[in-house]
């Protein structure tokens, strides 16, 4: 009944559930697609201009799409009161949280992998800076969205109209991460400035909030 064992089986269970129901990923993909198309309609930018705004557009699209997935993760646990089955068990709270965060990380990453080519085509993107830096930016940025997203989705379970509550709680706190992702991506695309600082900021954000989440999640889970 080790920590990792529970994390692993919870993660596998979540992926299996998502694979069978496809609640989150379908809604997320469609939503992100809509955002891409609508943005593309309303701006119709040339290559130079799109390079400057693409960083913002991409991450805003991912952020909104991620909220769909984040709301799903806990909604799934409320059906048939399964979350209580976890809560009555002797398993500690953190594996549940970590598994959920990893699951969301995987779902949002899949979304990003599928949507990025579309962005590149629609906005005629070509990075002028070191393109490989986009990989750590994507990984750290996605984790930043997902770790607090999973946490605040758990908090908003205990509120009225929880689906609206999640973005209200999540977006203000995510501001530094958002600035980091957007500016790092823009820096790489335009090649004007180094993205180093932003990557370091994202890393700091991830470390600080992963620690905070693991310290405090038990309180959130126990607050019925």
């Amino acid at each position, binding site marked *: 009944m080790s920590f990792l064992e529970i994390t692993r089986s919870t993660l596998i269970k979540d992926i299996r559930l998502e694979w069978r129901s496809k609640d989150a990923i379908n809604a997320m993909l469609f939503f992100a697609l809509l955002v891409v198309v609508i943005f593309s309609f309303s701006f119709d930018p040339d290559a130079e201009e799109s390079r400057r705004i693409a960083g913002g557009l991409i991450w805003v699209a991912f952020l909104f799409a991620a909220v769909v997935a984040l709301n799903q993760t806990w909604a799934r646990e409320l059906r048939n009161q399964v979350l209580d089955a976890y809560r009555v068990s002797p398993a500690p709270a953190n594996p549940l949280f970590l598994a959920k965060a990893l699951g969301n990380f995987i779902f949002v990453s899949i979304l990003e992998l599928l949507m990025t080519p579309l962005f590149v085509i629609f906005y005629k993107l070509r990075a002028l800076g070191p393109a490989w830096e986009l990989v750590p930016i994507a990984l750290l940025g996605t984790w930043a969205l997902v770790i607090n997203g999973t946490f605040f989705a758990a908090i908003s379970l205990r509120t009225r109209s929880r689906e609206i509550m999640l973005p209200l709680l999540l977006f203000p706190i995510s501001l530094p991460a958002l*600035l980091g992702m957007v500016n790092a991506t823009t820096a790489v695309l335009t090649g004007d400035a180094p993205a180093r600082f*932003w990557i370091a900021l994202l890393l700091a954000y991830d470390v600080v909030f992963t620690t905070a989440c693991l310290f405090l999640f038990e309180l959130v889970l126990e*607050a019925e």
Partner: protein
Amino acid sequence: MKRGFTILAVVTAVLLCFGLYAALIAAPTEQTMGNVQRIFYYHVSSAWTAFLLFTINFVASIAYLLRRNTTTDIVALISAEVGVVFCTVVLVTGPLWARPVWGIWWTWDPRLTLTFALWLIYVSYLLLRRFSTSSQAAVLAAVLAVFGGLDVPLDYLAIRWWRGQHPAPVIGGGGSLDAHMWYVLLINVAAFVCLAWLLCIVRYRLEVLKREVEETQALESLMEAGR
């Protein structure tokens, strides 16, 4: 208690009047910006007061998580609420200052942006307190407050760096401030801190009263069905 409150009220009133006089009349006129620069005294004093209140909220929230004492919970709540009021003042006076000086209402100046970010965080905190259905709403709110507090330094770094890359208008102030202006500013800061304290006391009493009423109502419903 009652006596202390009256004394504080009188001190606050005197300080506020004196601060107003000092800011509008006694303080020297700034050379480049002219009289508009006098907004500075209210703007900055409110900002400092708001930051102080948010710091109190952070400390009280941690204390609540550690000790689970009702007083710290109330302190966290009221400091966030009064803090948001002062923060609103900052956000309203900021554009009123920016417009005549820079010709624009809003600029993503680091300090203004950070204040805005703080305002968002603490409004979401108040929303959570309002809409929570949990019997442990106070715990959830305290957790959010801790997150908010941790977020501030990161926010600061991010905004600093973000604006650092673009030429941004710099607010007159900081190190180059005239000694007389400093003195006027400090009087106003003192006045606003006293005002905040006063508001907090009033709000505290209100909250205590409200909880008493809720408790009595709950007790009554306990009794009722017993018959």
